[in-house]
């Protein structure tokens, strides 16, 4: 019972983080705050994906303990079957490894574009930028 409650509690916490960061990106006018919340949103999604890969009896990462580069120790088929019963899902982790690098690339672009904006307009607050550029 406690296990189940904790299970749902963790999922709810992650989704709450996603909710707060989406709201923040939409409402906060400062670009740096938007960037920070964007990173938090991305990281929360990664954690959600890892969480979706878990099963109740998973205790291992998807790595089979197998010795070193020069002396690999391969396990038998029954060992592998037993291992599958207690491991997490590797596929969400595969997505995350690629997503992290793309997230960093996007963040890098955001950072350099906001630097340019700060130099051009002297401010990073979107409402003020709109006043300076005279769109309204």
């Amino acid at each position, binding site marked *: 019972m406690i296990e189940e409650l904790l299970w749902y509690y963790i999922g709810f916490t992650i989704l709450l983080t996603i909710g707060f960061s989406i709201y923040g990106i939409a409402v906060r006018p400062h670009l740096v705050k938007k960037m920070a919340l964007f990173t938090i949103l991305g990281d929360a999604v990664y954690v959600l994906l890892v969480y979706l890969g878990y099963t109740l009896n998973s205790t291992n990462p998807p790595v089979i303990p197998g010795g070193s*580069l020069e002396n690999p120790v391969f396990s038998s088929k029954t060992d592998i079957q037993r291992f599958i019963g207690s491991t997490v899902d590797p596929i969400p982790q*595969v997505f995350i490894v690629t997503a992290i690098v793309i997230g960093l690339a996007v963040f890098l672009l955001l950072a350099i574009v906001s630097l340019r904006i700060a130099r051009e307009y002297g401010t990073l607050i979107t409402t003020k930028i709109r006043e300076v550029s005279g769109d309204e």
Partner: protein
Amino acid sequence: MKKLEVVIPIVIGLGLFILLYNSGLLSVERSLTTLAEKYLEYIPDASSIYTSMAFEVVTAVIWDQRGFDTYFETSVLFFAIIATLAIASKLEDIIGERRSLTIIVRLVTRILAPIIVVVSISIALHGHITPGGGFQGGAVFVIAPLLLMLAYTSDWIRSRGFTDRKLLLLRGLGVTLIALAGLIPVVYSYTTNINAYLFQNQAKPDSFFNYPAYLQTPISTILVSGTIMLLNILEFIAVLTGFTLAFYYLTREFEKRGGGE
């Protein structure tokens, strides 16, 4: 106003929770997907023909089954850096003087940086055996140049001979070599009439092209898992030069700002 700032995010979170709960993704009884079970069953099994004998299933899937995707993901970072280079203003003129940090920071950085580099190389080379791989090793490596640039100003990297042009060249070389390594199976399939796919590493149900899992050297036999180790090393170089460049440009920009005012 203040109340709404708490209520709206909680409503969004609750809505997402209900959505996922109803679709069964959050259920306690969920188990591994069949695809995941297949990967976990075949990849580390030395007697199967679909194996690359990699103990780390995540790295094996990234560079074998999802190799094409991973290649374009590496190029995204490459294009982001090119865009950064285009947007960042001229690199050469820096107004004002830049000072390095205190002796404490510099000494600790000098001690830490080599350790970080060694750990990152170990992570990248053992990517197919223990948790880690090219991305992870590269991401760890970048901490060393970033610390050094913060402690000694961004000129440190240039004074060691790593100009941004050289780094960019290395970065392009890494991406190009990954692409060429991925093309080898296709060229092979055209010349011998055996079915093979882009970025194929080990045999698939309808194609029996595969690389040897072991590399024989005069000193010893090394487990390389086909192309996985090679691609991990190339990816390590590509990611570490890419991130070093990114942090180099950012540090330069911030130094310019600090020096000018």
